[in-house]
């Protein structure tokens, strides 16, 4: 009787989603109509005189025109970085380098609101996330690595370290400012100079960072920020005077980079795609696990390389977990990223939205059962309802390929060995999550899951002190923590 009855029981969340608008103010941030390249401490026009538009994915309105760097511009930037490296930066004592890095960190904090607003306008992520996660974490990375600059001998005891030289860095569109911080901070702390290229969809916060770097009086050429698309990135990778490539982005491009630098003396760290398994055991704190799954896959619209996009639930709690996920999905607010109450903002670009929608179609064709939140979407802009699939097979494309959107594929499992095998059955290995009340089970799982980061009873937690990086096709090298220093020094 009771089970039959519970089929009709449903909680209603319409009023929870319909709050009065609480928009952050656009006017609190200044966006110029046009941005140039930041080379050798100055903003310079691109030699090809070409510019491309950067749009707000939430409204499809143009925000600004961004300079496109060609081979000559890249060459100029690398030359500036080389000169700054040889003449200034590598000779400067660590404690002095630290002062500059600390200054950048403080200036990011001072202008946190402006950064958050621009990040949200340019990338479509909810203002709550840019304000509470992206910007503070970016500042923390600079603070953390500033502290290491004069203590490298303690990071590598009894070894001698020297900087690599010029680092070419290419970063993705999902966490534009944060990824810039992840790349620039350890490189500078170790005594390298930098040529960095943000993704073409999301250049604005990197260019704001260039303004800060200029104001901070960082010696000219130590950090060069150039904008452009794939060709600009390729010019950095192929430049003969670059000593190190640090790339975060797709596995596909990662492979191209690896081919390009084969046979050269360039070092590389690659942080690529992922298809993380989030595993819920029957003894888990279910409500917190459900919340962790929601944060794992819907954080930043699922544009997270370590997103928990595959969910494995032990069969005895499967129904309960799915029901709770559906309820939670209904209380998520989807819409204007600038509204302080928005949980899920805009998809970063039209291309990405098409990719996601295509996977949603594939999932249905593969026979998986789809459930989407009933939230209504804004008419303009690129939006996708949070989506979960049940009745998914391990062989389904939605369970194998990285979607990079708010789409979750759920499977059930019976035994520990089974779920370990399934979780590891992927070309990726960036992250995983384990939910159980039993400590011994956590340690058993963490030793057997082939992933760079394994979270236990939490997900998507980042800290500058903690290394991050992948196994298998998720890349190699680590960013963050002491491990992150190793990627920017020669150790003798």
């Amino acid at each position, binding site marked *: 009787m*009771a089970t039959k*009855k*519970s089929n009709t*029981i449903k*909680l*209603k*969340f*319409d*009023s*929870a989603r319909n*709050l*009065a*608008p*609480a928009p952050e103010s656009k006017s609190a941030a200044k966006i110029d109509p046009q941005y140039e390249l930041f080379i050798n401490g100055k903003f310079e026009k691109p030699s090809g005189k070409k510019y491309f538009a950067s749009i707000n994915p939430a409204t499809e309105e143009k925000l600004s025109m961004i300079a496109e760097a060609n081979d000559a511009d890249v060459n100029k930037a690398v030359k500036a970085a080389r000169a700054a490296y040889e003449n200034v930066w590598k000779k400067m004592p660590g404690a002095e380098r630290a002062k500059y890095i600390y200054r950048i960190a403080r200036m990011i904090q001072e202008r946190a609101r402006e950064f958050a607003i621009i990040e949200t306008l340019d990338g479509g992520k909810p203002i*709550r996330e840019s304000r*509470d996660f992206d910007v503070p974490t970016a500042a923390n990375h600079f603070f953390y690595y500033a502290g290491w600059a004069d203590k490298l001998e303690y990071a590598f005891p009894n070894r001698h370290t020297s900087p690599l030289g010029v680092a070419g860095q290419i970063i993705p569109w999902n966490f534009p400012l944060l990824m810039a911080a992840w790349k620039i901070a350890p490189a500078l702390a170790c005594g390298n100079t930098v040529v960095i290229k943000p993704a073409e969809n999301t250049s604005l916060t990197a260019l704001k960072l260039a303004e800060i770097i200029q104001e901070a009086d960082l010696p000219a050429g130590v950090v060069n920020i150039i904008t452009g698309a794939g060709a600009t990135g390729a010019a950095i990778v192929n430049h003969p005077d670059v000593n190190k490539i640090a790339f975060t982005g797709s596995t596909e491009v990662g492979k191209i980079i690896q081919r390009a630098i084969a046979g050269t003396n360039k070092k590389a760290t690659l942080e690529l795609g992922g298809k993380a398994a989030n595993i819920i055991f029957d*003894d*888990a*704190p*279910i*409500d*917190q*696990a459900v*919340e*962790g799954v929601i944060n794992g896959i819907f954080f930043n619209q699922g544009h997270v390389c370590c997103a928990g996009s595959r969910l494995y639930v032990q069969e005895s709690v499967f129904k309960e977990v799915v*029901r709770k996920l559906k*309820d939670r999905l209904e*209380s998520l607010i989807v819409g204007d990223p600038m509204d*302080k*109450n928005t949980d899920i903002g805009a998809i970063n670009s039209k291309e990405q939205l098409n990719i996601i929608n295509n996977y949603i179609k594939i999932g249905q064709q593969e026979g998986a059962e789809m459930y989407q939140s009933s939230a209504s979407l804004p008419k303009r802009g690129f939006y996708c309802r949070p989506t979960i699939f049940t009745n998914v097979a391990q062989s389904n494309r939605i369970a194998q390929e990285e979607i990079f959107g708010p789409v979750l594929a759920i499977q059930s499992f019976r035994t520990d060995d089974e779920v370990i095998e399934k979780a590891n059955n992927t070309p990726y290995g960036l992250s995983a999550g384990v939910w159980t*009340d039993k400590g011994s089970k956590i340690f058993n799982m963490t030793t057997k899951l082939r992933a760079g980061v394994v979270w236990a*009873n*939490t997900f998507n937690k980042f800290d500058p002190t903690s290394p991050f990086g992948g196994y298998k096709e998720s890349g190699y090298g680590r960013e963050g923590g002491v491990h992150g220093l190793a990627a920017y020094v020669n150790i003798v």
Partner: protein
Amino acid sequence: MIATKIIPNFSSPAHVDQVGIEERASRFTKRSIKNESKVNGLKLALNMIDLTTLEGKDTQGKVKQLCYKAQHLHDVYPGLPTVAAVCVYPSMVKTAKTALGNSGIKVASVATAFPSGQAPRDVKIRDTKYAVQNGADEVDMVISRGKFLEGEYNFVFDEIAAIKEACGNARLKVILETGELVTYDKVRKASDIAMYAGADFIKTSTGKISPAATMPVTLVMLEAIRDFYYKTGKKIAMKPAGGISKAKLALHYLVMLNEVLGEDWMNNEWFRFGASSLANDILMQLMKQKTGVYQSANYFSID
């Protein structure tokens, strides 16, 4: 019917992760409640208040004043709702009942040797019956925390069931006194026991022990209510009490309620605030919304 027919298994409770529940609770405080949502929320919060006086020094005069305030929160602001109930000791029930007349405001009475609960069961039952016979619409009982912490769950269950029987038609609120249970796992277990034993409300605290209500503790209890609802189809009401004295915090609680149990619970049949000073802060905020400026606390009556 007193207890439900589904036999719960209290030996294998639902687990609560402390870090996770506190993180989730703090997320509700990030909601930005503006304009009409704010005014509606504030009025709803007023309407959910159990206006409370539980002092040894309470007098009939004070209870009468409180009952007048309950019906006339701030007469310069027309169209305000009344509070949900006035909450007093059993000895004051008759006074409150008379003072409230047919205003529709309920009389809630604490009972069962409130706040410690350190009395034999027959005394607790008499205490309850006395309150109900004097006209209490609702009874706020305390559980025997000592027995609960000893692991005597059957004792606690039976006691709640016995008090529920003594309540007759009065709705029973079961106070867990979460400040003495300490862990979220224990709060969850006590919530389950209370609901299966026949509670109409589960309530966090007496207000006499610190900490009283907190958002994470309330969230644990709301999740217990949701699970119970899905298992049995029976709705249970929630009452956080003690320590909620600011309008903003009350709005955070309502956001939490709305996102965990949904709009069916967004009324004073299913949710109450046990508070003595919350009403005036809400009134002050409502006047600010209306006039654009804050008024001095002296413009709001203290009863």
